[in-house]
């Protein structure tokens, strides 16, 4: 592969970054918030995509890692006055350990498919009840962060700062996913997803690779959680560990296109604005309208495009290309004679 071709895929995220950076002056406050939510959800979905997409282990409890990121950062900040920069590192380390431990137990015992999904739901649900009963973490009420502006405290009165930070996360996430997708690690993950026994037979330590994916995914989502709590300045048990949060995280990846670099971002970019606008237009009349849309999107995606928007696009493109190439290569009458027909 030529050098130019190898670096081509990295240009897309950079262009996106530039385009997004030009947006703030032309967006009103409402759209700025919507885009910020797109960034947060896209970033979380990218983290999920490592374990759920590339590795094929559909976790239904990734709110757990997001929650660890958000809670620990907020806790160390509120209780010890620790800067969120350090809180972030602690939170990511704790999340890495959690991801490693869960992966270690669950994958060693060969839990997969539906069983894996159920375990992850149950663990996230346990986290809701555990955190609700720890008064140091604010119990059921959650933690409200104090205001302390400054780069050292990862807070700013200027919402545009968060917007640019969000762009940084998304573009960084896309670049990193793009890079990883060409690494041996991700090829192993996809081998595990496609056929675990075959991968094992070819010498891939499937358990180890799955645990690695779990750790990557956990750290990634914890960082998303840190960003979440620094923006909203609040975290509560249900707002991070709740089942709907975990479902939303994976929803964007699935709608956009599983195990693709761009899928999570595309999914969030399409769905978040729709639901946010319905929420603000119909929120008072139709409580729950946004989740209704998520549910419908999920059902329709599973029925009509199980590989997501990007999967569908790819398939259409391939069909088009095949048609063209078959027209070019096999003009009428030029087909080799088949043994069967004669």
């Amino acid at each position: 592969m030529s050098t130019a071709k190898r670096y081509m895929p990295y240009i897309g995220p950079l262009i996106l970054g530039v385009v997004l950076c030009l947006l703030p002056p032309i967006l009103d406050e409402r759209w700025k918030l919507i885009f910020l939510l797109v960034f947060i959800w896209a970033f979380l979905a990218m983290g999920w995509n490592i374990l759920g997409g590339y590795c094929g282990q559909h976790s239904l409890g990734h709110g757990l890692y997001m929650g660890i990121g958000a809670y620990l950062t907020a806790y160390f900040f509120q209780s010890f006055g620790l800067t969120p920069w350090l809180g972030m590192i602690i939170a990511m380390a704790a999340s890495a350990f959690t991801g490693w431990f869960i992966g270690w137990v669950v994958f060693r015992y060969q839990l997969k498919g539906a069983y894996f999904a159920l375990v992850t739901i149950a663990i996230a649900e346990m986290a809701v009840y555990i955190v609700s009963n720890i008064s140091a973490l604010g119990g059921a009420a959650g933690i409200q962060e104090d205001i302390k502006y400054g780069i050292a405290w990862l807070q700013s009165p200027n919402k545009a700062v968060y917007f640019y930070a969000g762009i940084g996360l998304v573009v960084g996430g896309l670049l990193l996913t793009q890079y990883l997708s060409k690494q041996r690690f991700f090829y192993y993950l996809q081998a595990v997803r496609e056929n675990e026994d075959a991968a094992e037979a070819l010498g891939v330590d499937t358990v180890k690779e799955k645990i690695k994916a779990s750790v990557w995914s956990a750290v990634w989502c914890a960082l998303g959680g840190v960003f979440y709590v620094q923006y909203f300045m609040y975290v509560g048990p249900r707002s991070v560990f709740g089942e709907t949060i975990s479902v939303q995280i994976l929803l964007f990846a699935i709608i956009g296109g599983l195990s693709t670099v761009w899928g999570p971002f595309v999914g969030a970019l399409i769905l978040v604005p729709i639901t946010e606008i319905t929420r603000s237009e119909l929120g008072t009349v139709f409580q729950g309208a946004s989740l209704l849309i998520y549910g419908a999107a999920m059902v329709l995606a599973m029925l009509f495009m199980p590989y997501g928007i990007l999967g569908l696009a790819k398939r259409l493109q391939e069909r088009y290309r095949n048609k063209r190439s078959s027209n070019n290569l096999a003009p009428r009458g030029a087909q080799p004679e088949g043994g069967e027909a004669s």
Partner: protein
Amino acid sequence: MNFDAQVFTQALVSGVMLGGMFALISIGLTLIWGVMKIINFAHGEFLMLGLYIAYFLVANVGFPPYLTIFITVPAVALIGIFIFKVTINPILKDPVMNLIMLTLGLSLILQNLALVAFKADVLSVRTAWTKRVIDVGGVVISVSQVICLIGAILTTLGIWWFLKSTDVGRAVRAAAQNPAAATLMGIDVPKIYLLAFGLGSATLGLAASLMIPFYYTSPTVGLFLGLIAFIVVVLGGMGNLFGCFLGGLIMGLAESLGAAIFPGSLSRVFSFGIFVLFLIFRPQGVLSRRQA
């Protein structure tokens, strides 16, 4: 902590009653899993619909609670069959995760439709049945909960008999064991799947009618009860009818003893903890042996 014999006995008895209810709401899930290996994440939401139907029949139409059975059972069965035909059936051959995502989406839809239609209020009916209790030496048992437990036992036995001794039941078991071979034997497997799904949904209609005298309904009621049903089914061994009943009892006891021992909602951690341990170390459930 004041943990005397009477408190303990009361918790034990309440646990068994609760266990009956848990078993009843889980039979359908285990049946559907056993026959077509689908985990229906919208299971709790089907129950929620049943509870709303039962509630409105009692509160607005004035039905006696237990007569609502004649409407909730066919209604929930039809809803289940309709949803199965339109959404699940077309992608039955897809990977198992797609079906999980699909039913997860369905549960979001049903939950939030209920929220739109009925608002977030918690609704419950107060009938004569609610207050009727049996008092055995200080241990109080609610009559409607006893009826629910009996309902669970009868439903378990009924479905067991149906699968064991009727021709259709045998066909269901054949389709569950080996769909391809069953097809070759002339069994209409898609029709059997439809029947199993309808039957599984019908048990939820029954559960709703038996629960409405002492339970409540709200748009999110299915979220918790659905999770409970998953736990019960896993404890009992997926697809195992009697295991399901036993799993219901274990969960009922864990909930009520847990509530007596642990403060606040920590008992839930205990229940989910049991679930996680079972999934990891004994996914085949309490009764059956590990399958190769």
